[in-house]
């Protein structure tokens, strides 16, 4: 019976252990930080930062440092640039985000081109864009954990001013909160979370972990703390179930080399969101 759910070897395989650990940490952080991204209407910024960290990932292949530092460094840098050119103003914010993203991806195209022509990195494009939890090396686990703690610490330390400046910016400013500085710190936390998930479930799909669980959490509770807890839980559940399904899918048709983890994680998050949305809107109507 258990063998039908957990294919043999699931609990003893070390890539699975690393995938569960790295994916779990990233899902928790994205769920917590993502709640603020969604409430503050910065879904697009989160998505753009994930894409822009590709630039760092592709540059790191070129100069030969660990992709982790490329992803994280460029992600945080881009957060600073976005803040500088006016992301804090709601008007024109998406536009500024889009421009930064376009320029960043243009650079990524150039770096990837150099990666594939000058150095002999085959498949760099795919690795960087889609990633795979099963290829995370256990040596970067400590760095992932440390950066995750940093992202959560930013949000935890700034919890009250962040919440206040999110729901009532004028009131926060009147109470002496530097709305701009808090916004920048929040964006940096988002950049950290997003570049970490870009490393693990792939740059493009990291948006899913940032936005999906947070949207589910905010549907389930209107109390911020509780919504964040739901969000982290939903992200964790989707990631671990996704890893399990991907492991089980190894002998599934048609390819017989396993379906991608990212596909399962994203699909689970989406189904969860649609289900929660359907249930809560029915409950509210009743």
């Amino acid at each position: 019976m258990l063998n039908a759910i957990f294919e043999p070897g699931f609990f003893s395989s070390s890539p699975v252990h690393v995938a569960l650990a790295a994916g779990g940490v990233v899902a928790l952080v994205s769920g917590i930080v993502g709640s603020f991204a969604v409430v503050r209407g910065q879904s697009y910024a989160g998505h753009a930062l994930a894409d822009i960290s590709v630039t760092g990932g592709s540059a790191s292949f070129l100069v030969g440092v660990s992709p982790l530092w490329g992803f994280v460094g460029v992600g945080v840098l881009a957060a600073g640039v976005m803040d500088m050119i006016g992301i804090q103003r709601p008007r024109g914010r998406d536009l500024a985000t889009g421009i930064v993203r376009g320029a960043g991806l243009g650079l990524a195209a150039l770096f990837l081109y150099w990666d594939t022509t000058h150095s002999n990195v085959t498949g760099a494009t795919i690795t960087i864009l889609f990633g795979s939890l099963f290829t995370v090396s256990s040596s970067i686990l400590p760095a992932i954990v440390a950066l995750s703690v940093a992202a959560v610490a930013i949000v935890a330390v700034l919890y009250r001013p962040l919440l206040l400046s999110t729901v009532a910016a004028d009131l926060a400013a009147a109470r002496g909160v530097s709305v701009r500085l808090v916004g920048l710190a929040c964006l940096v936390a988002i950049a950290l979370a997003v570049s970490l998930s870009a490393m693990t479930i792939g740059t493009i799909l990291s948006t899913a972990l940032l936005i999906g669980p947070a949207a589910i959490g905010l549907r389930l509770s209107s109390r911020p703390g509780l919504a964040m807890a739901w969000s982290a839980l939903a992200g964790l559940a989707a990631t671990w179930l996704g890893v399990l399904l991907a492991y089980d899918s190894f002998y599934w048709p048609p390819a017989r080399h396993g379906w991608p983890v990212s596909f399962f994680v994203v699909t689970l998050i989406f189904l969860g969101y649609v289900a929660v949305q359907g249930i809560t809107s029915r409950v509210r109507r009743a």
Partner: protein
Amino acid sequence: MFSGFMTNAWLVATFVAIVAGVVGFFIVLRGQAFVADAVPQGAFAGAAGASLLGINTLIGVAAAALLGALGIGWLGRRGRRDVATALALVVLLGLGALFLSFSTEYAPEIYALLFGEVLGVSANEVLPIAILAVASVAAIAALYRPLLLSSVMPELAEARGIRPARVETLFLVVVALATSMSLPVVGALLIFSLMIGPPAAARSVTSRPLPALALSAVIAVVVVWASIAAAYQTNWPVGFFVGAFGALCYAAGRGWAGLRGRRPARPGWPAAGAHGPGEHGVPAANVRV
């Protein structure tokens, strides 16, 4: 640079630029940068699916783009629009990842779909792209007044009997159309640079809609031509130049507006934030419709 095989590239790129400039004008006006970003990226899944099934890439891309656009419209009516956009995007990309894992496609082809391969346009691709370009511009022309009105003055538009949800859906379909024709040329990840940079620059030069629309198309054409020429000379990817020149346009527009003592995003324009024009677009007193 102007030899036989390059003619197709110049021709197709010009079509793409005109459509991107025209459609992009409304994207910037409506503050839908995220949608302009998500639909092409999601449409990439269609290309992967098409190569798996062995059908024409254009059909796969168009199907995925439509699915994405309608998905955004459907989900967005029930929740936050930026969340809806993000979810529709990631679901399509998840499918794309699945298709890619099934197929035996090599990395260079995927790279081309993501970042563009304008020099590789073949003669039999020109006609379908031309037809789609004409269709997109015609659709915008037909929708022009309701679209403009519901973008800048949603309340007035509603009072005149324009249904914002319907205009929104139709506009998303046009975005999907424009996307599917541009994807093979400038690449999924950079179409939207072309849809955002030139219109943003045009908008900071003039606030009258028709001249801004025309200027936006002209700037887009110039950007694409300059990008192809630069890519031809340096052998670097076209996508890099489109992204860089798009950002330059935006910077120039901001600089121009700054010199003339006004901001591109003046209070008269609707909020270009995460919320749709229907949610809290500010009525524009100084926009001539």
